[in-house]
């Protein structure tokens, strides 16, 4: 395992790649970037706008420390990705590696089959996984898609767009953005702040539809399901 340090210019995006090795990125009070891994290679991309750091071919982990607020893009095949601290705009793509993020300004998190978790995202948070679950804490806006995995967001300030095939969809809205939720057989549970009166458009072929909020015009909720239940409740 070797450690390499890099000076980081202003507004440089980090692009990290590892095939099967785990990737951990730590955003902390510092001005440079430190990378520790097996045969770490680095090169400057996009005329200095990006620093690409590549881990060796083995399964050894890659640990990168960078300044708080750094924009980071990570790609792995099976390696899990853990991002600790507060980041700028991030994108993480894996085939089967689990994705866990503490906090970011904007996020695009996608995996073919793994679970995805993010704590906080101030702006728009996109999450996409087929068989894994997509779980968010507090996000600005949510755009999520799964096949069999569930989608869960504890608090969404703005718009919510979620689609699943059979996974359940559960989200708590702050009542400030349109909500579009579609599923084939998954269960939908939406929470709205007490007193919010949504304009609703529900479509279900055989699932139960239940809305406890009075009809109004505060926000639009569109929900469609083939056989899953739809439930909207005040909190």
């Amino acid at each position, binding site marked *: 395992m070797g450690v390499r340090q890099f000076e980081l210019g202003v507004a440089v995006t980090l692009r990290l790649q590892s095939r099967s090795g785990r990737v951990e990125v730590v955003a902390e009070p510092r001005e440079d970037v430190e990378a520790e891994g097996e045969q770490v290679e680095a090169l400057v991309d996009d005329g200095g706008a990006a620093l690409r750091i590549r881990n060796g071919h083995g399964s050894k982990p890659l640990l990168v420390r960078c300044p708080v607020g750094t924009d980071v893009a*990570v*790609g792995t095949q099976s390696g899990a990705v853990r991002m600790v601290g507060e980041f700028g705009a991030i994108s993480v793509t894996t*085939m089967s590696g689990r994705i866990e993020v503490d906090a970011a300004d904007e996020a695009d998190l996608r995996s073919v089959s793994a679970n995805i978790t993010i704590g906080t995202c101030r702006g728009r948070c996109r999450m*996409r996984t087929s068989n894994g679950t997509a779980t968010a804490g507090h996000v600005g806006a949510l755009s999520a*898609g799964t096949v069999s995995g569930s989608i869960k967001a504890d608090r969404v300030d703005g718009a919510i767009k979620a*689609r699943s*095939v059979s996974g359940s969809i559960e989200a708590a809205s702050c009542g400030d953005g349109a909500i579009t939720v579609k599923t084939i*057989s998954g269960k939908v549970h939406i929470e709205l702040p007490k007193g919010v009166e949504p304009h609703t458009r529900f479509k279900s072929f055989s699932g139960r539809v239940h809305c406890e909020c009075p009809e109004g015009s505060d926000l639009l909720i569109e929900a469609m399901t083939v056989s899953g239940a739809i439930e909207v409740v005040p909190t």
Partner: protein
Amino acid sequence: MMAAATDADVVEGTVMFTDIVGFTEFTALRGDAEALALLSLQDRIVREELGPGARVVKDLGDGLMLWFEDPCAAIRTGLRLQERFEEESQAVEAPLWVRIGVHAGQQRRRGDDLLGHDVNVASRIMSLASSGEVLASEETVKRTDGGLAGVEFQQLGPVVMKGIPTPINLYRVERSG
């Protein structure tokens, strides 16, 4: 020793894969007749939107493999297809939820079929897209050479794919403005 492909077998172009998300579940719940109607709807929209220099290479059950001579046409068609799928999905109240992956490169002919590394890459890219989304490789974006007005490419960074030795830089394609 196996015979190498001749130059005549090699084509340059852009491959697109489409896939209906949740088709198996929809079929199980709504039956074969509605599932076939959904497939027919996808086929009709695709054939209406394909311009000259583009063709359906093959039917993949609940998806299609398409080929385009011009990468700009591939991107424009991908976006247009998603808009049409969304519109028709609303109109017929059926989940025509399609994900699309696009990659430009070199393909080898085998009869009407196309094979090769760049075909495999396009398929892998499709597997990372959400329903309603168009993803494209960096090579596709480069080949458009700024020839697409009103289209935005948002970089997603490196993607390390199984069976593909070199990471691919991936972009999400959207209408700008």
